[in-house]
């Protein structure tokens, strides 16, 4: 066993009251690729931010070559030899490739940039990586894959011995992946320590030799990939009890069909989506972040047009329509500077103000009714939504649509980032609404939520449906496998 280059022990980190990491440990070895696995929200991103100096851990120890260190800021991370390739591809589109490699670290004398040296070194690194594009090219002209290569080159320019790749393949084609892996292998063979974060097991087994698994912000396993297999890794990622907390009792009996989707497609986002939703049913849609679920919801709701396919509402449901509680409640769900009453009134003005005149009394009355029904914790209908807690904001967004009584309610990550109490309330309301004879489509990345709430689960991966499960066949391992196999 080689000695690790980078060692993390007992790393802890909380944001406000929410615990993001607890007792996290990780070892990275020179000449080795370690795969970091975990569900959405397991703490991988927080770890990346700590290693890149953006966040400080609340406790624990980071060692490089056995020496305890502190990563005070991104410059410190760079000087310690830690390079990060971010998932979101943080490139400077307004600068050339060469400049991107040397941002905030240009070769300079007396504050004056030495352009000749900068270009020469940039070209040398790109040649070493066999990148196939020019250092003088504006970064705006690069593809996403090429921008990843720029970030890797950036790490090389700074002579990083530790390289963190945060889901670098999430938006790459197969050929681009192969190209990236070629580079990763050559870096590994040059003795660098790499951390490879991915949801795709076949990639993990192809490129990595070690693994580490996080679950709910804690390390739950690590070792050599040769000593394990995919099913064992999935068990580590999921391994917890599922089910008790949720109000769904009996499975809905097959009601009449409310909604039918046939061959729905939107270029670059999803294709061949067909399913039906019945009265009284909660249909869960599971998938990894970026699988195309939000895009599907937006098309169902009509925010974005479809390129092909049909969405049919049953005649009885047509008048009541479809409502969407969007994923990003702060920018898409609620109008934050408006009061609760004004937010609730927005989609209901046709009934509240049939002749175009707003009636404050009716709006207040409606708000009072929903504040009671959903137990929204507020001083009254006039309280500004901005000043509510996240959970109560979400209740307002749900209430504004429920007040319209839509035949189909689409919820996109309805409990993301809200506290346990509000979460239970949202689950209760959702369940009651379905049981009252309406249809609910619930998109969620939270496995226990999907399993506990849904009568049926569809799994999306890379824009396509990759599985349909009933309450009996939906197990954590089955869903995760369908969502992450490539």
């Amino acid at each position, binding site marked *: 066993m080689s000695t690790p280059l980078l060692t993390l022990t007992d790393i802890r980190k909380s944001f406000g009251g929410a615990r993001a990491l607890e007792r996290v440990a990780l070892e990275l070895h020179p000449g080795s690729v370690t795969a970091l696995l975990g569900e959405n929200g397991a703490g991988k991103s927080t770890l990346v931010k700590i290693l890149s100096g953006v966040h400080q851990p609340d406790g624990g120890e980071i060692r490089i070559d056995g020496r305890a260190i502190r990563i005070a800021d991104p410059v410190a991370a760079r000087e310690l030899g830690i390079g990060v390739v971010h998932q979101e591809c*943080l490139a400077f589109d307004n600068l*050339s490739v060469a*400049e991107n490699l040397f*941002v905030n670290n240009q070769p300079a004398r007396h504050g004056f940039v030495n352009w000749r040296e900068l270009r020469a070194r940039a070209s040398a690194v790109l040649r070493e990586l066999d990148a196939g594009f020019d250092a003088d090219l*504006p970064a705006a002209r690069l593809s996403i894959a090429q921008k990843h290569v720029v970030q890797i080159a950036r790490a090389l320019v700074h002579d990083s011995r530790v390289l963190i790749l945060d889901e670098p393949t999430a938006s790459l084609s197969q050929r681009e992946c192969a190209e990236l892996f070629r580079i990763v292998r050559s870096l590994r063979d040059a003795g660098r320590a790499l951390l490879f974060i991915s949801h795709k097991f076949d990639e993990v087994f192809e490129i990595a030799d070690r693994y580490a698994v996080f679950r709910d912000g804690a390390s739950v396993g690590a070792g050599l990939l040769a000593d394990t297999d995919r099913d064992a890794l999935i068990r580590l990622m999921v391994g917890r009890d599922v089910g008790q907390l949720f109000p769904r009792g009996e499975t809905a009996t097959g009601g009449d069909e409310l909604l039918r989707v046939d061959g729905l497609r939107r270029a670059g986002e999803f294709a*061949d989506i067909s399913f039906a939703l019945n009265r009284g049913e909660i249909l869960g849609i599971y998938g990894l972040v970026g699988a195309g679920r939000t895009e599907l919801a937006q098309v169902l709701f009509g925010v974005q047009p479809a390129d092909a396919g049909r969405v049919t509402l049953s005649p009885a449901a047509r008048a009541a329509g479809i409502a969407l509680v969007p994923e990003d409640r702060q920018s898409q769900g609620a109008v934050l500077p408006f009061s609760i009453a004004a937010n609730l009134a927005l989609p209901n003005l046709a009934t509240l103000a049939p002749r175009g005149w707003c009636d404050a009394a009716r709006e207040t009355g409606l708000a009072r009714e929903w504040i009671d029904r959903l137990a929204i914790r507020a001083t009254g209908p006039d309280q500004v939504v901005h000043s509510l807690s996240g959970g109560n904001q979400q209740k307002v967004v749900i209430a504004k649509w429920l007040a319209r009584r839509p035949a189909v309610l689409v919820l996109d990550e309805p409990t993301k980032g809200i506290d346990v109490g509000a979460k239970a309330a949202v689950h209760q309301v959702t369940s009651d609404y379905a049981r009252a004879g309406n249809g609910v489509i619930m998109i969620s990345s939270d496995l226990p939520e999907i399993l506990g709430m849904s009568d049926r689960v569809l799994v999306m991966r890379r824009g396509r449906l990759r599985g349909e499960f009933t309450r009996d066949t939906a197990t954590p391992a089955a869903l995760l496998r369908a969502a992450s196999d490539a």
Partner: protein
Amino acid sequence: MSAGVLRGFSDTGRRDLAFGVLTLLLFGAVVAVFPGFASPRNVAGLLDDTSILVMLALGQMLVILVRGVDLSVAANLALCGMLAALFNRAYPGAGVLPAVLLAAGAGTLLGACNGLLVWKLRLPPIVVTLGTMSVYRGVIYLLSRGEWVNENEMSREFLAFPRGTFLGLTTLSWLAIVIAALFVVALRRTRVARDLYAAGGNPEAAAYSGIDAGRMQFLAYTICGAIAGLAGCLWVSRFAVAYTDIALGFELQVIAACLIGGVAIAGGVGSAVGVVLGCVFIGIIRSSLPLVGISPFWQMFINGAVILVAVLLSARRREHPRTVLESA
């Protein structure tokens, strides 16, 4: 890449070249009708008329590069000009240099005020500078009690300063040329300027690279303020009068010059050469319209139309197709 003849130029360089050709064509067109327009004296006059705009637009460019805007730049100019005039009236024997330094120093402080409010309190730039614009104008009124400082109250030395000539150009023109040259070199060659471009182009990525985008904003506002202060002293001595409302609304022309010169209002993109060309372009239009017999009121219309065309041309959006979808 279809680089062709223009290989070796960046996108911005290519734009500057194209806009330079356009400006020359405009100049040529005016000369074709009025040959006198190309006389050395007229060109020198054109330069002199455009100098203050050039200085202010270069300062403003820095602010726009970091995704801000400085609406208070003309008010800053007027306040510092009044300070210089009052100082000159009180100490006519002190010479020109103390007045220039006083104005530039005061401008630096006023610019730093804007910068601090934007950086430390994270207030939106347009709100901050709209506020300070009024505050600065108000302070002029308080300082001068609403009165004018007239030519006969200024020292002869003070009045002569921007008018002195060297190699056929005025001191004012030379100052603008020197500042423009400094900008061209500094923006291209210094590390701090490259950090400025990075912070404006992608603040989030800049933070991940260890650049404090807020500090860069502070720097931009401070330099912009220093230039406005200097320009205030020059303005007052050139026009030989100081009062509360000098350069009223001039900030809009300054911003227009930046936009015509190819500075992206979204930040991160712009060059000193482009901004100077933008000012020259405005200057040519301004001084040729009376010759052609068109009312100067058309100048605003033409400036506006040029801005819209420039924005339209640079709005060719690059599509970044999302590749979520897996091939079947």
